[in-house]
């Protein structure tokens, strides 16, 4: 009997959170203006996503995040492979990469504003910058940590250096590359949402959250937060599914 209920375990936390929320609101423990009843927030979410403005904001944020991740991946993956295949090259650039990887990307906004002006270019390029460093770091490490035995095995079977790179190192680095992509897309989303709030934006989920708060439309603000959460979770899940499909040997 208890085994039959196992598939429903993941929703226990969700139901619990909703109960606490409802009790807090209807029990009069919090100001209903600051925290509206769950029902109101979900109605706002449903209306907003069903042909409302929220859907347009959602799509704009998806577009920006996807573009920045794509640009980051196209730049960082080949670069990571080159850096990772030469340990000396990586060691000489390690400090620079680590330094900028540790720099909050939001600190780069003013610089990018000067370079690209107020607009999508700035948002996308700062997010791409942050994501690229995360991806680069992971790809380079994935290539560097390719199993020595596997490289030797390929060499012993007569594989040339280039073949070892494409047949072994590249595939060996894929699990780590996906770790980088998942972290990269999460970071890109964070940067995009922040940029949409403060860098003169007319749309996007960040703009939506900020505007709703300014107008004191609390259900709409919570709806936008949930939409952003669902987007982040969905992107992570998407990459996990792609990884499971194409890197079937990962972790085995």
């Amino acid at each position, binding site marked *: 009997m208890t085994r039959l209920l196992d598939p429903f375990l993941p929703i226990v936390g969700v139901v619990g959170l909703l109960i606490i929320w409802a009790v807090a609101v209807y029990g009069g423990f919090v100001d209903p203006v600051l925290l509206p009843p769950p029902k109101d927030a979900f109605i706002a979410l449903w209306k907003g996503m069903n042909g409302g403005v929220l859907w347009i904001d959602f799509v704009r944020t998806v577009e920006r995040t996807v573009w920045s991740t794509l640009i980051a991946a196209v730049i960082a993956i080949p670069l990571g492979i080159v850096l990772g295949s030469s340990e000396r090259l990586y060691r000489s650039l390690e400090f620079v990469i680590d330094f900028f990887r540790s720099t909050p990307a939001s600190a780069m906004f003013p610089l990018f504003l000067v370079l690209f002006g107020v607009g999508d270019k700035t948002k996308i390029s700062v997010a791409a910058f942050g994501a690229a460093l995360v991806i680069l770091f992971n790809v380079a490490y994935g290539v560097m940590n390719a199993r020595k035995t596997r490289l030797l*095995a390929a060499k012993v*079977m007569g594989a040339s250096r280039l073949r070892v790179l494409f047949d072994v190192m590249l595939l060996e680095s894929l699990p780590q590359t996906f770790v980088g992509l998942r972290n990269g897309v999460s970071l890109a989303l964070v940067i995009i949402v922040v940029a949409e709030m403060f860098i003169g934006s007319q749309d996007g989920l960040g703009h939506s959250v900020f505007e709703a708060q300014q107008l004191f439309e609390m259900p709409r603000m919570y709806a936008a937060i949930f939409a952003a959460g669902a987007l982040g979770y969905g992107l992570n899940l998407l990459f996990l599914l792609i990884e499971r499909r194409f890197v079937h040997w990962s972790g085995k």
Partner: protein
Amino acid sequence: MTVAQATLSSQFEALPQSATASAVVRPHVTIRGLSKKFGNTVIYDNFDLDLPRGKLISVFGPNGCGKSTLINMIAGLIPVDAGQILFDGMLLDEIKFGYVFQNYREALFPWMRAFDNIAYPLKMMKVSKRERQERVEKLVAHLGIKLDLNLYPYQMSGGQQQLVSIMRALVVDPEILFLDEPFSALDYEMTLFMREQLQKLFMESGTTMVLVSHDLEEAVYLADRVLLLSRHPARVADFTVVDCARPRDDATLSDPEFVRLKAHCLEIFQREVRRS
């Protein structure tokens, strides 16, 4: 050295001189003046050795004496500091050889099905896809191994994975096969099974095989010759001939000749261990 050994070894050293037998017993691998240092440790210093053709040679010796280093240098996995290794007078890159790693999990390609793993060295030799297919199928049929080659390595047991590794090494029809402690990562049951498989492969192919082992019984059981190395800098402490009949089986383990040879190897091994 006992009288029996003296005659055996003199027999082997005398044979190459006789004109009629020279074609048969000319050594397969000749190692001359081999030297290797790791840091300040001298592993090999001006080391000479001949490996006979078509024999299964076990390499055994004290821990860290350079057993694996020896076959890795012969197979070109690590460079030599000095010296020459020739195969019928040819260099390594002129011959076909196979190498089986101890760690099959890290030696196979997990992104390829077993079949493609086995065919990979043929691909490196630019063999056409159709011929690769044929040659792998021929090898499988020849060995009489029942394995689903459509599986990925991680879907197989350890023994099956190592079997795939061995097949990958054999598919090129190697002139010589190197095995670095191939069974030491397997459980005992699988080890026993794999020894039989290896013996079968050896008897069918007649390929020269060089096997590093850390198990003396296994080393003697499988070998035609047991190469006993001293502590480093390694010398040949003995190159014992094991002429028990094949196929060997459980009965061989209690055969007096086998027991005597094993005791003989153990004695030399212990003498070498105590020497330092």
